[in-house]
């Protein structure tokens, strides 16, 4: 369906990534945000607090990030599209509720404008420190989706994609920004509402009595949904549950529920590949990057090409699920991968796992606080080429 025009600020703007992310959420139909102030993410909720009274919806500043991350889920079951926004320390507090959203299949968008950790770290300089935390931080096994923009324009465009994917797969979708992307100001073009495609919630058409909370078919592992107040008298729990949503704590039910929750993402992983390829065909070296690091990598790649090297660039838009199959295939064609990240080497673990020693993988870690020097990445490319 098309976007609701009341939330779409059509036009050409000069705004930073935080503001653009907020506009993306409004355009995607987000009408409820619960948040707690934390730099460098606060501008997202500040803008939402100013904008939503004129659109129709609610912003509430909660008492902490724990409360924010569960208030949004209550709001989903009341019928709204929702988002919460935070940075590293706040994200750490939200961990338990990632699992709740996974287990109850509550579509929700979680924005993380990343800063340096661990702990209070280096506030509030850029980093890409939370890439593995979102995947493994909540207890138990689970699958999520994560998207990484590298510009204010992408903060708008990809935010709509984040909301749409959360509705399609009924899982938490993480929007992994960083301080630089959040605070850089650039041109942002917001199209007309009728040019924006939004995915509606997968509400059931079944009558109460015929509807089962978590019933799925072999072809579609994502259940239909209802909201509170419509007469379905639903039950939702973070306990292991059966198709009715009732807690049923047996090994068999656990196995069945877990398998479906994992498979609904894994089996669709091929649809969730979004990698922007730049001259990867025929390349000897492929630089892999995401977020702000991709823009630094770009400069290094230009220099390497000027030196006559055949260098491609594979930029991850969707970081989770990690596009394993794509890199496994690419591994048979290239001599090496170079993977700069604003952390001590997080997503490079996934790349290593995907290519299992077939080719050289050069990690280019950075503890954060600023972005890489292009020369650091260039040197890694030169080293990999030898």
């Amino acid at each position: 369906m098309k976007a609701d025009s009341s939330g779409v600020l059509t036009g050409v703007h000069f705004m930073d990534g935080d503001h653009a992310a907020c506009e993306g959420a409004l355009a995607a139909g987000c009408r409820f945000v619960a948040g707690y102030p934390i730099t460098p993410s606060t501008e997202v909720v500040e803008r939402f607090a100013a904008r939503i009274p004129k659109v129709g919806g609610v912003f509430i500043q909660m008492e902490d990030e724990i409360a924010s991350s569960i208030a949004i889920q209550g709001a989903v079951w009341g019928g709204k599209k929702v988002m919460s926004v935070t940075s590293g320390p706040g994200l750490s507090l939200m961990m338990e509720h990632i699992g709740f959203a996974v287990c109850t299949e509550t579509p929700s968008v979680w924005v993380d404008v990343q800063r340096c950790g661990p702990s209070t770290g280096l506030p509030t300089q850029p980093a890409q420190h939370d890439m593995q935390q979102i995947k493994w931080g909540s207890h138990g096994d689970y699958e999520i989706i994560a998207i990484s923009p590298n510009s204010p324009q992408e903060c708008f465009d990809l935010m709509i994609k984040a909301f749409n994917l959360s509705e399609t797969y009924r899982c938490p979708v993480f929007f992994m920004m960083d301080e630089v992307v959040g605070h850089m100001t650039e041109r942002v073009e917001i199209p007309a509402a009728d040019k924006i495609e939004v995915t509606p919630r997968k509400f059931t058409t079944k009558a109460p009595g015929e509807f089962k909370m978590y019933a799925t078919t072999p072809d579609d592992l994502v259940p239909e949904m209802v909201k509170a107040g419509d007469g379905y008298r639903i039950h939702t729990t973070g306990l292991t549950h059966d198709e009715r949503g009732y807690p049923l704590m047996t090994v068999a039910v656990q196995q069945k529920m877990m398998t479906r929750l994992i498979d609904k993402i894994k089996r669709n992983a091929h649809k969730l590949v979004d990698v922007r390829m730049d001259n990867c065909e025929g390349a000897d070296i492929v630089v892999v990057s995401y977020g702000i690091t991709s823009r630094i990598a770009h400069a290094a790649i230009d220099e390497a090409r000027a030196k006559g090297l055949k260098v491609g660039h594979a930029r991850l838009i969707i970081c989770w699920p990690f596009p394993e199959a794509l890199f496994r295939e690419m591994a048979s064609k290239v001599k090496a991968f170079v993977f700069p990240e604003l952390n001590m080497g997080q997503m490079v673990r996934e790349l290593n796992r995907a290519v299992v020693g077939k080719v050289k993988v050069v990690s280019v870690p950075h503890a954060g606080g600023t972005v890489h020097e292009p020369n650091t990445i260039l040197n890694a490319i030169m080293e990999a080429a030898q």
Partner: protein
Amino acid sequence: MNECGEYKDLDIQNPVLKVLRQDRIPHIWCPGCGIGTSLNCFARALMDCGLNLDKVAVVSGIGCTGRTAGYLNLDSFHTTHGRAIPFATGLKLSNPELSVVVYSGDGDLFAIGGNHFFHAARRNMDLLVVCVNNYTYGMTGGQVAPTTPLGPTQTTMPYGNFEQSFNLPFVADACGATYVARWTAYHVRQLAKAMNEALLKKGLRFIEVLCPCPTLYSRRNKLGDGVDQMKYYKEKSVIKNGADTKEAVLTFQGEIIVGKFIDRERPTWLDSMNKHLSVALGDSFVPYGTNGGDNGQN
């Protein structure tokens, strides 16, 4: 009598069964536990209050009382430990036509979830909060709670509790609740009436229900069984409607002040938001939830 032991000729079906999820009965609570009694009172209040039960939702946290949501035939949410109130806050604000009830235990609401209660009451979020207080953590085996009076033994206070407990009605009063009452599992009629009254009131409403935990709290402290605790409630309760909540302190097996302590009006969070923003923003403000909710795009 048929093969199931039911007297077919007599209409002896439990009168509150229709507001319970019959396919989830029997419940998990121990013999003599007061949570079921409180649920029975709540079920009666639901039947008597006149609300459309399709528009009533119940939210619980984790623990023995946290299982309440699963037994009520309402839209029901069994959330995470301590977080029933913020979940309910999101649910209510998202769909303001709902009456949202938080039903949980003392440890859940006032230890791990304490901060959320304080702020929901301060904001006057439109929620009814029922707190079953059995002075202990039941599900985990009888540890000290923020409501355990001075003296009794708990597994994590093996030589007797030396920590000061919360006086919950005083906390609720201080934080701004619009309705504050305390009853025990013995006072079933008063409790059902209070729940009925509170269901129909606006703002953050708080009811504390004192309940026996014969399996852990009573046994460990040699207080007898569930019936002995009911006798204690009967003998030591003093009804003082309108009492100063400061005086409602609980002591180990001491006097229990029960009654309706607070009944006042304050604008709810949503009413305040609508009123304030319609003045601040004039015509550019889109009023929210004033027509029974369901604003915005789903």
